[in-house]
């Protein structure tokens, strides 16, 4: 099982010299298994480059199958979908999985992006076959020989974390989420942030505790844990309601779950490469005597779980 990063950025794509090394495309990760259809996690702008690579192979002849796990439908996690080349060839198939949105069908939510004033090609007129698979929190299912599990995260309008197990190796994708301590994020709009470390409604506290337990369980012994670490601790103080974590939060989860490698992901749009280097170096130093290995996601980075890269 190999993990390839096509987009590592949060919020919106950020072109420019200052993001050349880590990359400016929004979230998209590919899981490659020899002889298995590609599994893509999230469809940010990084998906466009992946699509260009896929259409050189069986996708060119309309014989391609791709599976896609979507964490949630915020723009930075779906905005690459209309620009995914395999969708424009007859015969290709996309199996898309995401959390059941509640009051509407997943297909209807995603169709909005391709509709009238926004995009010229409606979703239902794409040549490829697109199938929407709605997931419930905690659901377990198989994609070929890959076992997939999911659990919900603490994010506005709710996101899903996914765990993939194959051939004795495991990967968890955990983006986007706030830590599980200062605020419960679901469907309510929160205009003003609560005080970090302040008192919490008991019901909310219980719900957050259970959510965290389930996430730790999902991450149990994972070989590779990709985690939303958009904020530095100082940035988090004023934005706990934005639904993103810090490396400290990610490290705490990784340690509790006994994950082997933690990978920082979903970098803030304003973060320059040099600043990201500094964050990475700081936490690398912090973990110098730790069993937990630390990586920082960059566009083009490939991690082979079978070769012990992670």
């Amino acid at each position, binding site marked *: 099982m190999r993990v390839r990063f096509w987009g590592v950025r949060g*919020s*919106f*794509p*950020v*072109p*420019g*010299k200052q*993001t*050349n090394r880590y*990359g*400016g*495309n929004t979230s998209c990760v590919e899981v490659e298994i020899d002889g298995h259809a590609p599994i893509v996690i999230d469809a940010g*702008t990084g998906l*466009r480059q992946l699509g*260009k690579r896929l259409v050189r192979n069986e996708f060119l002849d309309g014989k391609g199958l791709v599976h896609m796990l979507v964490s949630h*439908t*915020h*723009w930075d996690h*779906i*905005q*690459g979908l*209309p*620009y995914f080349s395999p969708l424009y060839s007859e015969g290709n198939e996309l199996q898309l999985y995401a959390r059941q*949105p509640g009051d509407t069908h997943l297909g209807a*939510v995603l169709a*909005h*992006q391709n509709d009238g*004033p*926004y*995009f*010229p090609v409606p979703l239902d007129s794409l040549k490829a076959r697109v199938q929407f698979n709605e997931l419930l929190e905690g659901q377990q299912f198989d994609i070929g020989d890959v076992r997939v599990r999911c659990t919900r995260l603490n994010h*506005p*309008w709710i996101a899903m974390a996914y765990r993939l197990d194959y051939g004795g190796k495991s990967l968890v994708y955990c983006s986007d989420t706030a830590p599980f301590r200062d605020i419960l994020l679901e*469907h309510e*709009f929160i*205009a003003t942030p609560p005080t970090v470390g302040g008192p919490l409604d008991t019901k909310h506290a219980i719900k957050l505790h259970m959510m965290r337990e389930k996430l730790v369980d999902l991450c149990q012994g994972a070989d590779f844990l990709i985690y939303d670490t958009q904020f530095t601790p100082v940035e988090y103080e004023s934005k706990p309601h*934005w*639904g993103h974590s810090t490396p400290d939060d990610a490290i705490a989860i990784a340690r509790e779950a006994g994950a082997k490698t933690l990978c920082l992901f979903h970098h803030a*749009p304003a973060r320059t490469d040099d600043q990201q280097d500094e964050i990475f170096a700081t936490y690398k130093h912090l973990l110098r005597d730790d069993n937990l290995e630390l990586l920082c996601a960059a*566009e083009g980075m490939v991690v082979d779980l079978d070769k012990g890269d992670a």
Partner: protein
Amino acid sequence: MRVDVWGVRGSIPAPGPTTNRYGGNTPCVSVIDTKGHLCVIDMGTGIVPLGTALLQKSLPVRDDFGAGKGNATVLLSHGHWDHIQGFPFFAPVFIPGTKLSIFGNARTADRVEALLEGQMNPQFSPIYTLKNLGATIRFEGVREHQCFRVSDLEVSSMELPHGETSVLSFQIKEQGKTLIYASDAGYSASGAPDDVVEFYRDADVLIHDSTYTPEEQELRRNRGLSSYLDAAAVAARAGVGKLVLFHYDQDHSDDIVDENVRLCGQELERLGAGRTEVVGAFEGMQIDI
């Protein structure tokens, strides 16, 4: 008027080392008139660095955007993603007191509002609704051939073909000088209609779509975009002073754009329009007209 270019890329932002010189952000151009009023054309991701520049006070605008005293006009050519996707990340919209007037390519103000409201829907955006923004926003639907005044600027619109839909081109005049913005223009193979050429006539600066090479255009005419040859042809017919190539294909590297600009210049020479200067728009470009 002073023109600043913030985003030049078509379809989708194109980050990476191969777009560093021209830039990978989607369309956004600002026009500042002699009174210091800010007029923004399109809200691709280029509007994000514009927002930063406004808060850093690095532009000669009259209003203090950081203090919630910003007042800007936005002209939207159309509602495709690459022309609106920067809006939720434009810093001044979060500052209470900011005033925005958004003129969009729709028959009614409601439709312009609905376009941006749909972008903020909680399924897609943590903002949930336009009502949660700090800014006060007024919407206007713009019809073809509508003329209106924005501070000291005289603005006229013209509808251009864009595949199965249309876009607005804007003509902006101040003190006898004229700027035309014509992104996403996609004429038929026989070229721009005469009334479009008249709309561009003698403009000092024409910012024009140049998504494709002629070879790509052969295959993609139905998408409703221009090649650099289409841009050269209409610029030559209209006798414009300066042609600014714009809205580059997401897969065109800086080197390809360099070559397209050079070949566009050759084409202008061939058409007997050697007086028309051609340049490739790049992020950070400033033109004083």
